[in-house]
């Protein structure tokens, strides 16, 4: 089986040959990869034989971000970049690959200001190579992913500011609806572009969990977010019933899992082991959803021994004895993760396949 055939078999609950691997390195670890392996040009994704690759990022129809400058008056400086949605990102000398976000609509007072906000549109005209690039991945035997994390809730808060948007949801419903609707329409456009380009997997996500609790009440989630996510997924599945939808949320989200399944997700990521008990989650939901992740990046990946990393991988695969787990670190690997633990994760996947 190719990596793609193998992964897609796992995701379709069919027999597969080996445990696929997936990891993401932060820039500092990527440099370490080159140092440790001596590989100059080979990307780490190829070196570690990861099962999938991202399809190219979508290019908006209007790439000129100067139209967002009026929304950031007084705070544009050389450390600030404006992204395609008009969100400002300010880096600091010590913040590594992180940035402070500047919300373009945080001071908006009227619904009209939201409605007039120039979010970009997305079309095949601006992304003429997309389907071809996806096909190239498939020809290499790799599964293709349309990465669209920050689908509705997160993008909305990046525009409005989280505190403002949460307050809108309780005290200014018209304002909240205007933000959510605008973002949802843009996300549907983007999702359909990926779907029509033939990606195997659409990777959605919005953080709705905190470490020990959910970010908002279930009533609020069901009023504002889940129906919009459900609409997006149903539009995608209308044109591509075979597409596999991944959904990411950090943290504790157990009260929302049924609602995410109802919205149409196929695979839940990352089941943060520090926040939820994978065995319990697996036993409760595995007949209705698959899982991706489970190897803790707050605990075992940075602070465990290589042997503990391996045992965690095997333990979680043992829990998922009826299948449905794409085992992987739960998040981007940060600079303090020892190289030996990364190698241990990859080896653990291979060794489990051999045992099997």
């Amino acid at each position, binding site marked *: 089986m190719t990596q793609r055939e193998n992964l897609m078999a796992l995701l379709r609950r069919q027999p597969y040959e080996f445990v696929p691997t997936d990891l993401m390195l932060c820039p500092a670890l990527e440099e370490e990869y080159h140092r440790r392996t001596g590989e100059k040009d080979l990307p780490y994704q190829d070196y570690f034989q990861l099962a999938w690759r991202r399809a190219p990022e979508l290019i908006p129809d209007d790439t000129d971000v100067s139209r967002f400058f009026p929304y950031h008056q007084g705070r544009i400086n050389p450390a600030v970049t404006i992204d395609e949605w008009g969100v400002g990102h300010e880096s*600091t000398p*010590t*913040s*590594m690959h*992180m*940035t*402070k976000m500047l919300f373009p609509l945080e001071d908006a007072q009227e619904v009209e200001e939201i409605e007039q906000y120039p979010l970009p549109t997305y079309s095949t005209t601006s992304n003429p190579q997309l389907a071809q690039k996806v096909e190239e991945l498939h020809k290499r035997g790799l599964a293709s992913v349309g990465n669209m994390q920050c689908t509705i809730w997160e993008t909305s808060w990046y525009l409005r500011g*989280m*505190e403002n948007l*949460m*307050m809108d*949801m*309780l*005290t200014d419903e018209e304002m909240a609806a205007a933000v959510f609707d605008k973002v949802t329409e843009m996300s549907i456009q983007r999702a359909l572009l990926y779907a029509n380009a033939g990606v195997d997997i659409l990777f959605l996500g919005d953080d709705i969990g*905190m*470490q*020990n*609790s*959910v*970010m*908002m*009440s279930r009533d*609020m989630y069901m009023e504002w977010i889940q129906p919009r996510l459900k609409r997006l997924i149903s539009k995608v599945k209308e044109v591509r019933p075979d597409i596999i939808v991944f959904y990411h949320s950090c*943290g504790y989200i157990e009260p929302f899992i049924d609602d995410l399944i109802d919205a149409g997700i196929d695979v839940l990521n990352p089941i943060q082991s*520090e926040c939820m008990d994978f065995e319990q989650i697996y036993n409760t939901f595995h007949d209705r959803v698959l899982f991706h992740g489970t190897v803790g*990046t*707050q605990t075992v990946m*940075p*602070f465990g021994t290589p042997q503990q990393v391996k045992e965690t991988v095997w333990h979680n695969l043992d829990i998922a004895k009826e299948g449905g787990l794409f085992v992987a670190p739960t998040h981007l690997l*940060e*600079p*303090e993760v020892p190289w030996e633990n990364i190698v241990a994760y990859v080896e653990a996947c291979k060794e489990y396949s051999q045992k099997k």
Partner: protein
Amino acid sequence: MSVLTEISENLQKGKAKIVKQLVQQAIDEGIPVKQILDEGLLSGMSVIGEKFKNNEVFVPEVLVAACAMNMGAALLKPLMAQEGVEAAGKVCIGTVKGDLHDIGKNLVKMMMEGKGLEVVDLGTDVSPEAYIDAAQNQGCQVICCSALFTTTMGVMEEVVKAAETAGIRDKVKIMVGGAPVTQDFCEKIGADKYTPDAATAADAAVELCKAI
């Protein structure tokens, strides 16, 4: 229903404008400022804090309640200064150097203000020296450090060491929190208190201020 109970109940519902009107009404009725604060605003926030701890309300409800509290408190502040009403303690809070995440930190700040504490917000990406400076020069009794990353939580140990080096370790308490932080970590680095959520952090800070 007394005006103070009305303040508390409207605050819990996040009715900021009504809270402001009611606080003004209470002031006009001659109710002592300290009583309006304690039995109106802080009493309402206390209920919200308990409900938050018990997962009966979540971040959005806390935000609107805190907003209502601030609207009311803005009317009381000048009068409190006049009458010499003191805060329950003074703390400084910030997200540690290298870390720009502030949602959790802001929530803790709101909860602490809801307990009547004066909070100096140092923002994000805060160096150990900046915490020490706030403790020394602004009279903060508690230093509160937040981190979201395993990469940056190590800076909390530097804050503890900086307090020792500055010779103020016995005069200041150090609290730590944030997603990857644990009780074990708190003990390992020699900090004074770890709390798993914002409401518990606020309660702990009040206790620490009393103890100093």
